[in-house]
C-alpha cells in the first residue's frame, strides 16, 4: 500500500511533461493563457515538493518503483532528504523565474512565447527528473533533457547567444558523453544501474582500475556540466546572453543540479570508503580554490554586468566544490560534512537568481548592459536597485545575509582541517567580490547621468519595472536576508543533518 505522497515524485515529473504539451497545444489557440498553465503547474509542483520534504523528514526516504518493477530491473525513484531539499530550491527558483518571465518574455521574445514556455517547462521537467531519479542511467537521460532545453533557451535571443549556445552544446555533450562512459564502466563491472544497488555491489571492486576510471570520467564529465574552473569556458557567454530568467535558472540552479549529481554519484554510488582511498577530494579543493580566484579576477575585468555575474558564478561553483571537497575531512557538527555545500547551493540560488533577474530588469527597461551605463539608475528604479544591492551585499558576504553564513561555514571547515590557505583564499575572494560588486553599486547610486544633478528631488522620473517582474526580485532579495537569519538560527539544519547521517559524513552522534 502506497500512501498518496509516494506518488508525488513521479507526478512532479509527469505533470511537468503534461503541462509542456498542454502549453504547446493551448498556445495554438490562445497564447496568453500559456503563462497561467505554466504558473499553475509550477505552483502545484512546488506544493508537492513541500509535501515530499515533510514526508521524507517524518517517515524516511520514498522509494517508488516505476511500473511496479522491482529494482534493479525497473527504474526507481528515490527521494531522500538530499533530493527533497534540492527539489524545493529548484522549484522555488523556477517559480520566481516563471512569475518574472511573464512581462519579460512579452517584451523580449514576443513571437516565441509558446515555445519558450514549453521549453522552460521541459527544462524544469529535466531538472526535477535528475533530482528525483534513483537510477544512474535515468539521470543521464534527464541531464540530456534539461541540457537540450537549455541549449534551445539560451539561443532564444539570437545573434551572440547562438554562438554561446553552440559552444555550450558541444562542451555539454562531451560532458554527458563522459558521464555515459562512466556509467558504462560501472555497468561492465557490476551489471547494475540502480544507485543503491551499485553502492552495494561496488565495494569488492574498489581497487579495480575500471572503477577508478569510471569515477574519473564522472568527475570530468560533471565538471564540464557544472563549469568547474578549467572547464568553465562555455559558461560566461551562455549565462550572459540568455534571457534573464534563463540566466537565473542556469546560474541559480542548473549548474548546482550538476553538483547535486556529483554529490549523489560520489556519496551514494562510490561510498565514503572509496573516496577515502583516493586523494580526489583534496585535488578538488585546490581546483575549486583556483576557480574561486580565477572567477573573481575575471569578474573584475568585465564591463558587461551579466557576464560579470556569470564569472561570479564560476567563482561560486568554486565555493560549492570547495565545500564538497572539504566534506570528507571536516566533521564538526554545524559545518561538517556536506552542510556548507548544500547551504551554499540554496544561498547561491537565491543570490544569483536575484542578481540575474535584476540585471534582466535593467535590460528590460532601458536595454542597459554595461556597468558604465548604470549612472543614476537608483533614482529611476529604486526597488530593483535596492534588491540588487541586497543580493550583491550578500554575495560579498556581509552579515547577516546568506552569503555570510555559507562563507563562515566554509571557513570554519577549512580551519578545522587546518588549511589556512583556504581561509585566506576565501577571505580574499570576498574582497574581490567587493571590488566588482561595489563598482556596480557605486555607479548606480553615487554617479549621475550627464546633465544630472538638476533632476534631484524630482520624483517623477521613476521608471520602475512592472510589478510581475518586481515581486520575484524583491522576494528573492528579501529572502537573502531572511534566510541568512534563519540559517544562523539553525532552523533548516535537520535536513542537512539527515543528509550527513545518510552518507556517514560528519561526526557520528
Amino acid at each position: 500500500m502506497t500512501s498518496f505522497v509516494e506518488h508525488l515524485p513521479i507526478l512532479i515529473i509527469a505533470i511537468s511533461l503534461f503541462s509542456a504539451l498542454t502549453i504547446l497545444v493551448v498556445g495554438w489557440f490562445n497564447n496568453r493563457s500559456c503563462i497561467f498553465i505554466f504558473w499553475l503547474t509550477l505552483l502545484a509542483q512546488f506544493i508537492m515538493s513541500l509535501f515530499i520534504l515533510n514526508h521524507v523528514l517524518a517517515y524516511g526516504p520514498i522509494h517508488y518503483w516505476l511500473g511496479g518493477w522491482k529494482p534493479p530491473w525497473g527504474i526507481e525513484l528515490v527521494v531522500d532528504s538530499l533530493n527533497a531539499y534540492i527539489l524545493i530550491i529548484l522549484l522555488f527558483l523556477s517559480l520566481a523565474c516563471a512569475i518574472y518571465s511573464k512581462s519579460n518574455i512579452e517584451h523580449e521574445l514576443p513571437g516565441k512565447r509558446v515555445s519558450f514556455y514549453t521549453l522552460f517547462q521541459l527544462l524544469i521537467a529535466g531538472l526535477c527528473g535528475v533530482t528525483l531519479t534513483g537510477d544512474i542511467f535515468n539521470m543521464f537521460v534527464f541531464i540530456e533533457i534539461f541540457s537540450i532545453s537549455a541549449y534551445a533557451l539560451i539561443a532564444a535571443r539570437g545573434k551572440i547567444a547562438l554562438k554561446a549556445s553552440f559552444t555550450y552544446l558541444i562542451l555539454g555533450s562531451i560532458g554527458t558523453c563522459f558521464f555515459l562512459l562512466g556509467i558504462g564502466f560501472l555497468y561492465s563491472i557490476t551489471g547494475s544501474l540502480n544507485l543503491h544497488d551499485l553502492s552495494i555491489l561496488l565495494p569488492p571492486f574498489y581497487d579495480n582500475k575500471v572503477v577508478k576510471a569510471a569515477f574519473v570520467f564522472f568527475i570530468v564529465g560533471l565538471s564540464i556540466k557544472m563549469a568547474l574552473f578549467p572547464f568553465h569556458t562555455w559558461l560566461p557567454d551562455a549565462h550572459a546572453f540568455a534571457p534573464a530568467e534563463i540566466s537565473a535558472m542556469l546560474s541559480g540552479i542548473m549548474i548546482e543540479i550538476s553538483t547535486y549529481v556529483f554529490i549523489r554519484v560520489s556519496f551514494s554510488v562510490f561510498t565514503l570508503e572509496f573516496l577515502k582511498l583516493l586523494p580526489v577530494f583534496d585535488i578538488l579543493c585546490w581546483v575549486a580554490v583556483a576557480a574561486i580566484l580565477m572567477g573573481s579576477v575575471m569578474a573584475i575585468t568585465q564591463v558587461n554586468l551579466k557576464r560579470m555575474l556569470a564569472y561570479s558564478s564560476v567563482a561560486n561553483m568554486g565555493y560549492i566544490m570547495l565545500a564538497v571537497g572539504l566534506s570528507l575531512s571536516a566533521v564538526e557538527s554545524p559545518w561538517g560534512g556536506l552542510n556548507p555545500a548544500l547551504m551554499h547551493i540554496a544561498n547561491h540560488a537565491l543570490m544569483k537568481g536575484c542578481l540575474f533577474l535584476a540585471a534582466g530588469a535593467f535590460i528590460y527597461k532601458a536595454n542597459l548592459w554595461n556597468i558604465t551605463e548604470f549612472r543614476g539608475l537608483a533614482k529611476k528604479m529604486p526597488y530593483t536597485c535596492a534588491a540588487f544591492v541586497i543580493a550583491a551585499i550578500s554575495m560579498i558576504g556581509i552579515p547577516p545575509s546568506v552569503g555570510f553564513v555559507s562563507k563562515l561555514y566554509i571557513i570554519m571547515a577549512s580551519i578545522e582541517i587546518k588549511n589556512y590557505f583556504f581561509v585566506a583564499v576565501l577571505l580574499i575572494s570576498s574582497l574581490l567580490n567587493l571590488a566588482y560588486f561595489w563598482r556596480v553599486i557605486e555607479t548606480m547610486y553615487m554617479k549621475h547621468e550627464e546633465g544630472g544633478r538638476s533632476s534631484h528631488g524630482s520624483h517623477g522620473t521613476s521608471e520602475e519595472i512592472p510589478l510581475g517582474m518586481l515581486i520575484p526580485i524583491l522576494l528573492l532579495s528579501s529572502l537573502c536576508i531572511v534566510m541568512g537569519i534563519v540559517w544562523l538560527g539553525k532552523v533548516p539544519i535537520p535536513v542537512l543533518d539527515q543528509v550527513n547521517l545518510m552518507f556517514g559524513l560528519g561526526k557520528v552522534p
Partner: protein
Amino acid sequence: MTLTVESIKPALALACPLLAALLILLSSRRPNLRESWTLIAGLFQFAIILSMGPVILLGKTVAFPFLTGVLPGVDFGLKVDAFGLIFAITSSFLWILVSVFSIGYMRTLKEHAQTRYYFCFALAIFGAVGVALSKNLMTLFIFYEILTISTYPLVAHEESPEALFAGRKYLAYLLTSGVFLLAAIALDYSITGTTDFNPGGHLTLASASRPFLMILFLLFLLGFMKAAYIPFHSWLPAAMVAPTPVSALLHAVAVVKAGVFGVVRIVCYVYGTNTMQELGLGVMLASLAAVTMIGASLFAIAQDNLKKRLAYSTISQLSYILFGVALLSPMGVTGAMLHIPLHGFMKITLFLCAGFILAASGKKNISEMAGIGRTMPVTMLAFTIGALGMCGAPPVAGFISKWYLGLGAIQSGQMIFLAILLIASLLDVVYFFPLIRTAFFETMPSQELLPGDRGKTVPVFPGKPQRLEASRSIYFLMFLPLSITALLSMLFCLFPNLFYILGLARVAVRDILGGL
C-alpha cells in the same frame, strides 16, 4: 558571579533605530515627518538604554538571546554589561544631538538625497548600538559590518569624484579589516569553542601556542582597523569629505569608537589582562598607541583644513584609549573606558562647531577663520571648551580621563608611558592653540571674498562683525546641540557620574581586574 537578568530591553533599544530607518524610507517625501521619526526613535532608544543603568550598576548583566545554537557555544544574542552600556549610552545620546544638528545643517546647505542620509544614519546607529550590546564576537562582527556598509553612503554623500574616492578608500580599508576580523573570530572559535565576552577573557596560554596567540592578536588588531592606529589611519582623514554631522558620527560616536570598543573588548574580555601580560602584548599595544598619539598630533599641526586637523586629533585621541587599555592596570583601563564617552562628547562639540562654521560662513580652513570668534562667539567658546578638554585642562571632561590614564601609567610602573602621555597632551595644546588664537585675537581681513564653496555659502559682509549665530532661525537647530555638548563636557568634569558613566566604568573594571 554576575547575575544575568533576561530582558527584552536590549532588543527594544536596537529596534528603535531599525524601525526609524524603515519609517524614514516610507516617509521620504515629507521631510518634517521623516526627521521627527529620527528624533523620536533617538529619544526612545536613549531612555531604554539609560533605564538599564541602575541594574547594571548592581553588578548584574542584562541579556536577550535571540538566536541560539547555530555554532555550539555561540549564541547570537545581546548582553549588556557595564562597558557595553557606556558605549551604548554615548552613541544613543549623541545620536539625538547629531540628528538635531543634521536637520539644521542639511537644510541650510540644501543637501541632496536627505532620505538616504537619515536612513543610513539610523542604520549606522543600529550598528553601533548593536556592537555595544553584543554578547559575543560573532554578534559583534555582524553589527560591525552593518556599521561599515551603512556609513559608506554617508561618507560618499557628496557624490563628487573626491567623495567617491574617499568612500572607496573607506570601504577598502574597513571591509578588509572585517575580513581579518572574521578570520580572527573563526580562529578564536576553532581553538576555544566560544566567542563570548568574559570579564576575565576566555583565551588562556593553555588554549594555543604563544606565537599563535600573538598572531591572533595581530589579526584582531587588524580587524579593528576602525580604531585608526597609525599605519592604517589614512581612511579617516580621507573620510572628511563627508558632511560634518557625518564626520561627527564617524569620529565621535559610531565608527571609530566601535573600533576602539572592539580592541578593549579583545584585550579585556577575550584575552584577559593576565594573558595579555604574559604574552607581553600590553607593551606592544602601548607602543603602537604611543606612536599613534604622537605621530597623529604632529600630522595634525600641519593641517590647515579644520576638519582634517580634527581628524588627526581624533586619531591621536583614540590611541589614548588603546594606550589606557594597554597599560593593563585598573586605573588605566578605567581611564580608557571613560575616555570613550568623554572624548565623544568633546569631539562632537568640536565637529559640530566646525560644521556650524562651515554652514553659516562657508569657511573650511583655519587660515580663513581670523576673527571668527567675534561673529560667532558662543560657537567659538564651545570650541574652546572642547579644545581644552582635548588637552586635558581641568574644568573640562578630558581632564578626568587623562587623570586616570596618568594614574594608570604610574600604576603600571613604567614612567616612560607617563612621559609619553604628557608629551602627547602638550602636542594637543600645540595644534589647538593657534586656532583659538586665530579665531579670537586676529582681525578679519578687510576685503574678503568667500571661497565659492559648493555654491551654497551665506554671504558675510566684510568688516562688520555680525552675530551670525542668531541671524537665521534654522541656525538654532545647529547652535543648540553644540551648546549642549559643550555644557555636558564641562559637567562631566564636575559630575563624572552623569549618566552613570563613572559608576559603570568602575563596575566594569571591578569585573575585569577585581577593583581599582
